[in-house]
């Protein structure tokens, strides 16, 4: 069959839209979790205190070096077996992806913080600023500039990574696409539309990060 027929698939657009909403929610939850946890892990690593550094190090390396697909499956099927308490398919995927992305954010943030000259910490210290204020007003605002581009890339990677939730049946974009493909026998057309949907979701994120970068560059003069 040499021809491509999109007509049949078009009828399923409302279903695909539902999938887009789930993908967005998955991304939103896991990115939020990842940012907060990632910053905490980065600070724990940067602190150099063994009690904080080592658990953070173990967490980061564990989640960086095992496949996110397996992490999702562990959380969905493994957690109930371990603690007798289960998460539904959406939350299993959201939490697993959040923990996974936190490990990557942590390394980005740690590098960003480490990139700030030691003399900035010293200047804050002799002014009497505490650790919290030093981070909030001196270090993190400067680190933000450096971490913005890799953070944007990681967020985009994560949005597409939510497709892994298909494995446990979360009705996100790719899962919906697969079901439509099964019904219509038009996998190429369906997946092409799914890919376009991912592009429509992620490209604005790329643009937003670029705009943020430009704004930060301009505000410094």
């Amino acid at each position, binding site marked *: 069959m040499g021809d491509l027929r999109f007509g049949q698939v078009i009828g399923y657009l409302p279903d695909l839209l539902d999938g887009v909403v789930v993908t967005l929610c998955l991304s939103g939850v896991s990115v939020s979790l990842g940012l907060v946890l990632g910053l905490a892990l980065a600070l724990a690593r940067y602190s150099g205190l063994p009690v904080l550094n080592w658990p953070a190090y173990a967490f980061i390396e564990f989640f960086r070096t095992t496949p996110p697909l397996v992490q999702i499956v562990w959380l969905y099927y493994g957690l109930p077996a371990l603690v007798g308490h289960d998460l539904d398919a959406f939350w299993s995927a959201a939490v697993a992806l959040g923990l996974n992305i936190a490990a990557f954010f942590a390394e980005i943030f740690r590098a960003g913080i480490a990139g700030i000259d030691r003399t900035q910490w010293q*200047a804050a210290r002799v002014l009497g600023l505490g650790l919290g204020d030093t981070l909030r007003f*001196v270090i993190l605002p400067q680190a933000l500039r450096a971490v913005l581009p890799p953070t944007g890339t990681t967020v985009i990677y994560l949005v597409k990574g939510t497709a892994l939730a298909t494995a446990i049946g979360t009705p996100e974009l790719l899962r919906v696409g697969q079901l439509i493909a099964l019904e219509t026998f038009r996998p190429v057309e369906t997946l092409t539309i799914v890919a376009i949907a991912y592009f429509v979701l992620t490209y604005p994120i790329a643009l937003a990060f670029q705009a943020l970068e430009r704004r930060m560059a301009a505000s410094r003069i």
Partner: protein
Amino acid sequence: MAGPASQPLVVIDRMVKRYGAETVLDGISLSVSAGQVMVVIGPSGSGKSTLLRCLARLEPIQQGRILIEGVAVSTGTEESSPAPDAAALARLRHEIGMVFQSFNLFPHLTVLENVTLAPRRVRGMAPVEAEALAIELLRRVGLEDKRDVHPARLSGGQQQRAAIARALAMEPRIMLFDEVTSALDPELVGEVLKTMRGLAEQGMTMLVVTHEMGFARDVADDVVFMDRGAIVERAPPDRIFSAPAEARTRAFLERLLEREGGSRRAR
């Protein structure tokens, strides 16, 4: 013994600072009275900057004590000592301001924000109040028209004057200056030294590490010569420059004047 009224503002008592096996400060004792300007000179690696950094509590010390108004704010890590009163300690730590060779302004903040940050966050001043204080200080250092500019837009001399204003905003009783003109183009040195002279005239207690012998001669009450982690000699400037008691001091000053002779006078 002297009563509390004449008690020195800062007392350094047999302070030892080591990095690993290397001893950088070897039992330094020094006292500075309120209103005194003390200039510390010496060859590079003699420990003068480390001395200031220990005073500013940027470095822990291994032995000895640093007292401000008779209260130990730093104690050697190798010594057991009673825990000092935390509240008094917090207050006294704000009594020391420091200005660095590399300015270390916060590049993402305007000059005004650089100066108001610590008064607002550490002293708990209201934004309006902190701003009024900052504007007054910027006027004193001649930067009132640069308040809304980011540091990158300033010359080195302007940045250093902004850094002085920032340190003064905490209303410290002692100001430490760590080679604050060494990173400046020669034509910008004068404006920073002028600001420092002004401070000295207003009675600020100052500890100044510098290679500007003219400043030492004119402004210092006492000059301290350090070499290899120890204080070799302490004397008023006219004596130390005309008739140093120690051979090492003399050799250092001769080398310095020889080098400076070609380019500019020592003044």
